[in-house]
């Protein structure tokens, strides 16, 4: 089924925004954060106007409603990724906190000096820095699956790294710079064969592809609501039950406890054990509404639409003299096009495009080592989502020709 973009765009009020008199926004920055449909905005609005209360501990109507809404959202998210149980979905602030949670709990309980952790060269800082911190603290070793010139993982080297019996393999499902969609099921299967636990950074995949944690057989998976039509301030960590149950808690406080004495406590059961203090309640409600919206369109339909736009964008970008797109061909990647252009700094490209309302991102996109690998400090990045159109791609192309003129 094909997607009716013009109908979809009506659901996103910001897409009508004039960023300058007469200049409508052309939003090509969804990889940084997605825009939100009315149904998500309104779900939170309604929550605050009708139901808002603190959860779990109240017996009045508002508290019962808020608790039910918070937990129903968890069920929706669990179903969306095909988690066996909603108890395996832990609310966090974002992907970054989800990965840090694993690093602070599972990893600190299970990794010791000299243990090997495998990452890749295309990781986002949020899947690098937590391991740098652990390496500095504990003396664990880090090794990296290299990225080829085409922007793919070098799986041959991965195989030889696996021979060194890693304890953990943590990697991104989809690169936020190259767009590369990594063969996650395969990487995970090989990691398991080598006896390693796996963490999947799904910040870019869950919003854009059908992701099934049982099919992937992944141990931990991290993602953010704000990249999948949901609000800021909330994300999730999925984990296998046995691992989550064996892990020590992370943050201490209300709600994550079963019992507190003056000098000791007993942790609560899953998922509450990992949710300390008043959580992002309205945001959970918004997260649930975002999942509903994505389901109402269908992830296959969304992926197909994005593929079409990406293919078109790559074709048009590659026509431009002096422009170089990074990453693999359209069939191996999601809706991301990162490029350099003729010695013009990406900030300047982005700034000139902005004059026509075209919003792209410029910089290292929180993937400095990847940029270093390619010998460039920064790229310009256009990215697409279900509301993106070919017309917007055309405006991007025109804009880039203007950049050429200014820097002539």
């Amino acid at each position, binding site marked *: 089924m094909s997607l009716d973009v013009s109908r979809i765009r009506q659901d996103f009020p910001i897409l009508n925004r004039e960023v300058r008199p007469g200049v409508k926004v052309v939003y090509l920055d969804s990889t940084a954060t997605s825009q939100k449909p009315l149904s998500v905005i309104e779900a939170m609005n309604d929550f605050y106007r009708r139901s808002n209360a603190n959860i779990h501990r109240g017996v009045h109507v508002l508290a*019962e409603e808020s608790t039910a809404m918070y937990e129903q959202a968890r069920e929706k998210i669990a179903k969306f990724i095909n988690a066996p149980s909603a108890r395996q979905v832990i609310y966090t602030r974002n992907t970054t906190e989800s990965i840090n949670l694993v690093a602070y709990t599972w990893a600190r309980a299970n990794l010791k000096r000299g243990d090997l952790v495998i990452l890749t060269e295309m990781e986002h800082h949020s899947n690098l820095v937590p391991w740098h911190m652990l390496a500095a603290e504990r003396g664990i070793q880090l090794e990296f699956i290299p990225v080829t010139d085409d922007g793919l993982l070098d799986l041959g080297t991965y195989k030889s790294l696996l021979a060194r019996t890693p304890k953990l393999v943590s990697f991104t499902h989809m690169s936020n710079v190259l767009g590369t969609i990594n063969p996650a099921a395969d990487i995970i299967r090989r990691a398991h064969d080598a006896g390693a636990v796996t963490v999947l950074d799904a910040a870019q995949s869950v919003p854009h592809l059908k992701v099934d944690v049982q099919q992937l057989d992944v141990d931990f998976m991290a993602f953010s609501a704000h990249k999948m039509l949901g609000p800021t301030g909330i994300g999730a960590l999925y984990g296998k039950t046995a691992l989550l149950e064996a892990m020590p808690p992370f943050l201490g406080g209300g709600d994550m406890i079963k019992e507190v004495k003056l000098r000791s406590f007993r942790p609560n059961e899953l998922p509450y054990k990992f949710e300390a203090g008043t959580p992002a309640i309205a945001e959970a409600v918004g997260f649930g509404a975002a999942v509903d919206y994505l389901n109402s369109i269908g992830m296959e339909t969304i992926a197909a639409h994005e593929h079409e736009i990406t293919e078109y964008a790559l074709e048009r970008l590659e026509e431009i003299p002096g422009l170089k797109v990074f990453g693999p061909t359209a069939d191996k990647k999601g809706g991301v096009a990162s490029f350099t252009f003729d010695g013009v700094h990406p900030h300047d490209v982005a700034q000139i495009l902005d004059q026509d309302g075209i919003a792209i991102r410029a910089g290292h996109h929180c993937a400095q080592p990847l940029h270093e690998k390619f010998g460039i400090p920064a790229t310009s990045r256009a990215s697409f989502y279900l509301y993106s159109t070919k017309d917007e791609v055309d405006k991007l192309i025109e804009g880039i020709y203007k950049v050429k003129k200014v820097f002539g």
Partner: protein
Amino acid sequence: MDDLYREVIIEHYKNPSYRGKLDPHDISFADNNPLCGDHIQIDLRVDDGKVSEARFDGHGCAISQASADLLVESVIGKSLEDVKKMNRQDILDLLGIELGPVRLKCALLSLKVLKAGVYGLGEASDALVE
């Protein structure tokens, strides 16, 4: 007055028939409701795979204590296999009321404790009463 406080609940709360402890016992298990500190202990004597005697002790709200009394009453004579099969609906049927998610936890505490004891688990968890 309120449905939640049907006479039967108030009656079982004020004058429970099965409050107490069993000594000796074959199974004894206790746990808390982390949301409010309600506490339930359940002791069982088992003969030939069947519950021959049962008592509960603890403190908490009318719902938690009445449901414990009703639950304990209902399991006497049941096989342990049948106890393992009990679920949230059995408790709601015993109480004869509807409950929101927070109060439901009060009602289900005794069943969690009972099943954790019968299964010989280290902890009572929500998964036991779904």
